[in-house]
């Protein structure tokens, strides 16, 4: 009897242990994805609530031999509070001089291709363009269009991949997998700091799974309303040896931009 009882007890113990292990594993697996999402959501939402912004930026393109070309543009953004919709942005080129006045209007979508129009000042023409080319280089730079616009939270699936020191900060490492069509990436690894919850570094892996590019973001400045913005981006392409640097001026927030300033018809008058 005693042995049977002991046996039964042992069985129960083993089963319980097994159950605990299983549920712990399940809980842990869920945590990695949830945790990845939560870290990314906190980071993304920490940038929200800015209303609208205007910033001038300089784009420095370097080829493998180090030869530089520079572009200057004005970026205006209108925040759309609904997370299931993307923000609206208007880019106006100022330099080089021959493309001065060329403007690009984008209505970002989450999983669908964006709506995009380009204004060609030579012909005074507004043209709706295809936006499926998310992975192509943006104006000859190492930034693909998706690198500039795809910060919307729901564009990815996430997975927490550990914590580590990044510069002087402690960072969470999150893997993210593009869910939108036509992405040029199989996955990205994002380093988000635990202090201000801002992205410090991104590694881009191409569709073959090879490391394609690394983006470093620094010179973060805090604006009223706890809004952080990086003012320096460095994108290195490991496969071509080319790089692109973005240098931002100070941001202006709540400049009074409205829907009408991001209407298709506004392209011909934006400066």
């Amino acid at each position, binding site marked *: 009897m005693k042995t049977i009882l002991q046996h039964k007890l042992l069985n129960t113990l083993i089963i319980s242990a097994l159950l605990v292990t299983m549920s712990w594993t399940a809980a842990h697996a869920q945590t990695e994805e949830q945790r990845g999402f939560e870290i990314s959501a906190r980071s993304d939402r920490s940038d929200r609530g800015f209303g609208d912004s205007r910033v001038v930026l300089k784009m420095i393109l370097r080829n493998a031999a180090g030869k530089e070309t520079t572009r200057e543009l004005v970026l205006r953004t209108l925040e759309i509070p609904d997370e299931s919709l993307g923000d609206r942005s208007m880019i106006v080129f100022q330099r*080089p001089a*021959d493309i001065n006045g060329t403007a690009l209007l984008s209505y970002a979508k989450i999983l669908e291709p964006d709506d995009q129009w380009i204004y060609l000042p030579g012909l005074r023409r507004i043209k*709706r363009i295809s936006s499926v*080319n998310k992975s192509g280089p943006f104006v000859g730079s190492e930034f693909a269009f998706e690198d500039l616009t795809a910060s919307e939270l729901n564009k990815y699936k996430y997975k927490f991949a550990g914590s580590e020191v990044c510069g002087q900060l402690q960072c969470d490492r999150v893997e993210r997998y593009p869910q939108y069509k036509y992405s040029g990436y199989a996955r990205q690894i994002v380093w988000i700091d635990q202090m201000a919850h801002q992205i410090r570094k991104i590694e881009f892996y191409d569709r073959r799974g090879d490391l394609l590019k690394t983006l470093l973001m620094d010179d973060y400045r805090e604006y009223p309303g706890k809004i952080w913005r990086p003012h320096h981006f460095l994108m290195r392409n490991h496969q071509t040896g080319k790089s692109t640097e973005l240098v931002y001026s100070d941001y202006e927030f709540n400049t009074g931009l409205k829907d009408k300033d991001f209407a298709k*018809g506004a392209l011909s008058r934006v400066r």
Partner: protein
Amino acid sequence: MRHLILFFAVLPLVADAYETKLSGFIGGELRYFVSDAQFENQFNGLQASLLLQPEVQLQADKGNNQFSFIPFIRLDSRDDRRTHGDLREAYWRHIDDQWELLIGVNRVFWGVAESNHLVDIINQTDEVEDIDREDKLGQPMINLSAQQGWGKLSLFILPWFRERTFPSKDGRLRSQPSVERDVMYESTAEQGHVDFALRYSHYLGDWDLGLYYFTGTGREPRFLLNESGAGLIALYDQIDQLGSDIQFTHGAWLWKFEGIVRSQNEDEFSATVGGFEYTLYQINDSAADLGVLLEYSHDTRDEDPAKAPPVIFDDDIFLAARLAVNDTQDSMLLAGISIDRNDHSSVLSIEAERRFGSRWSVELESRWFMNIKEETLLASLKKDSYVGLKLLRYF
């Protein structure tokens, strides 16, 4: 002229208080005609030009008041009517929350097609610049627009008509006989006839749509022989025109349509152009994009240039490829051929463009008239195939 002087006198004063921007370009163009001329008087060989287009833009009140001033000058070595100046823009624009008002000279482009700019009607064509009808003369106007959630409504009052420019008797790429400087109008108000246009445009999902009505002096003239029979007189009729441009953008496809219905010289006709542009992105794992374009134009107007304005694209297929290299110099190549379905007369165009440094750009433009039949509209151009090179410095 007095207004112009006043404008320049006041300009430096207001420039301090306003945000001012000076830009524009200066450059040279060289055209080489590969064959000797078909007609007497026409020159052979090289045609050189100097170009200048400064652009002054001012804005005040956070951009809610904008001023633009863009004169243009071309000096041509061979054709005294190609030597010309124009005020491309000189306007004041006020932007309000619900509406915007523009008074002055401006350029407005409507349309979606690449080969044939059928619905584009506000501005007169500056034909001595290029035969592709993409260069336009500045049009005086009062333009009131309202941008709402349901679209944009735009009213144009056009108080002064601009006559089309034509090459002189000495020039290449002209009709035979050449177009005289004398013009005729159907309206007794002549150039002073006030024209109107009302346009609605909007976009819904993948669709972009424009619809307009124009009434007034038609921009395209008919041509009558003058008394001596040695020249053509341009005759500008009063017209009514309904036009529409539609684009459906889906994936890498752009589907395009333009259509007009016009009454002119007691006749009524319609014309359409439709087709697609399909882009192959990052060809061969490079950064370059290759676009393939196919368009078809059809026009039902009278073929007699004395009865209706002459039109090349009456039953024509246009096939083209556009290569955007996507490099730091924004190199671009466009090659297209337009073929008449009836007589197989063809025009091949090759255009290439590239930037050098940060301020220079070079453009190559070449047109080849091939298989041109005697009795067609293009017959006077059959010896006018040329290669052109344009070097511009932007400032």
